[in-house]
């Protein structure tokens, strides 16, 4: 088993070389969508490259780090299969290229899950999914895996007891760990057997009190034979509801480096250093990211970012795609007015929203671009993996 130094930097962008191509998890892919950056800078309305969404707000887990705790909107509409398929048709019409099923719910629980993924494939829209894997059983895996670009499993810790304590009721409830591992292994084997292109990874959302889980997590990723294990910070809202102390991350840097060095040819251990080192503080005041990477709640709510799903941010609620077609929301004045507001001096990303949103890397890059600190340029390299997931 060969240990490798796996993080590369080209023009400041992080990527990891894998057998299947370059994997960018700790940066963004905006150069590969340069036409939209140009259109945006020219003041044109642009369709998001990527939409991050959920097909339900339901979830059987109770992760202590879950941002969904802070994402309760006024309504919880059920998303019917037809709503979900219509949504994809609208995405295709306006030019959305990738959809990640993450957001604020466990999409594998939705009846729309399988048809949604299969319909996306017929439309040429790339699909990724983050899941705890508990209800992602073999029959479901077989129906969706051939159509997916990536699947990332939330694995809070490398040891069964810690995993169950963080993600479920207590350390004695290790049946959820066993179930998840069995499903992940099934997917790893199916990928190999059928030579599928889908990238499989596991993710640890690191909070300082669980630093002893870093090395077991990295070992678990290697043992499972997934393509990568990624360790990221934990987001919190601007009031500190989850109580994350970002100063404590620095004490874990040695352990994180040790974990990275456990990478093998088959499995890369990746740390999202850029976000971790930002310590919950953004460099930008204006929030341009949502125009490129939009988020939709498992309640059907369309808001620029998942950070705005809670009723608190009602002024940014643009519509609900179970009540009207998404394309009508996208074409409405309210959509553009809301996006413009986030780019105006009325809004400050440092004080009016939670830390390190999913649009963080994109927002940093666009802010640096506009300020002339570092312009986004047309790419000279070949496309990385998952290019349609910003």
């Amino acid at each position, binding site marked *: 088993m060969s240990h490798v130094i796996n993080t590369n930097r080209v023009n400041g962008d992080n990527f990891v070389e894998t057998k299947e191509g370059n994997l960018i998890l700790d940066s963004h892919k905006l150069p590969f969508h340069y036409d939209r950056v140009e259109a945006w800078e020219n003041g044109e309305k642009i369709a998001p490259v990527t939409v991050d969404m959920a097909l339900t707000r339901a979830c059987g887990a*109770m992760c202590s780090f879950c941002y969904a705790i802070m994402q309760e909107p*006024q309504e919880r509409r059920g998303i019917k299969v037809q709503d979900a398929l219509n949504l994809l048709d609208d995405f295709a019409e306006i030019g959305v290229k990738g959809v990640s099923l993450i957001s604020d719910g466990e999409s594998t629980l939705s009846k729309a899950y399988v048809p949604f993924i299969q319909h996306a494939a017929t439309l040429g829209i790339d699909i990724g999914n983050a899941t705890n894997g508990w209800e992602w059983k073999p029959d479901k895996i077989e129906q969706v895996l051939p159509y997916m670009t990536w699947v990332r499993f939330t694995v809070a810790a490398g040891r069964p007891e810690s995993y169950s304590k963080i993600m479920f009721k207590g350390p004695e409830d290790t049946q959820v760990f066993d179930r998840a591992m069995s499903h992940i292994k099934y997917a790893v084997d199916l990928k190999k057997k059928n030579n599928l292109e889908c990238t499989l990874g596991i993710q640890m959302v690191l909070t300082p009190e669980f630093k002893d889980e870093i090395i077991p997590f990295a070992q678990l990723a290697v043992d499972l034979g997934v393509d990568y294990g990624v360790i990221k910070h934990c987001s919190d809202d601007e009031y500190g509801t989850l109580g994350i102390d970002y100063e404590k991350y620095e004490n874990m840097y040695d352990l994180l480096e040790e974990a990275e060095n456990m990478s093998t040819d088959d499995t890369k251990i990746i740390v999202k250093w850029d976000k971790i080192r930002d310590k919950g503080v953004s460099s930008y005041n204006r929030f341009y990211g949502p125009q490129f990477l939009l988020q939709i709640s498992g309640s059907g709510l369309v808001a620029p970012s998942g950070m705005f799903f809670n009723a*608190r941010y*009602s002024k940014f609620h643009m519509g609900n795609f179970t009540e009207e077609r998404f394309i009508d929301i996208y074409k409405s004045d*309210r959509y553009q007015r809301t996006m413009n507001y986030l780019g105006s001096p*009325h809004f400050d990303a440092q004080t009016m929203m939670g830390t390190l949103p999913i649009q963080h890397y994109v927002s940093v890059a666009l802010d640096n671009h506009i300020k002339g600190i570092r312009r986004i340029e047309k790419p000279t390299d070949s496309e990385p993996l998952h290019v349609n997931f910003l």
Partner: protein
Amino acid sequence: MFKNYADVDTFATQEGWTKMSESKRLDLIKQKISEHNEFEVIHPTRSQEDGQVFIELTEELPASKRGIMLLSFEALLKENIDQGINVWHEPIDDKNKLRKLRGIVVKS
């Protein structure tokens, strides 16, 4: 054309607002609501020196209506009272029964 505000300071409240008592601020906001029928469903609950104004809605509105109405309401307050005002709805706690067992309450 793209308007570049990347380096512009975020609007902050001015002395007229910061030196006003909270009850006076709320009276002023209520007065503006009474002058505009389209905002009659808005009930201000509290206001802070830093310009944060919290409200509740007295009737349920779909997402397609509440967002744009609150942006317009905020614009009215900014234009007539102070540019640094920011309107927020009172937060709602997580309704997921399992996660609620963690006992985490959304801070505000």
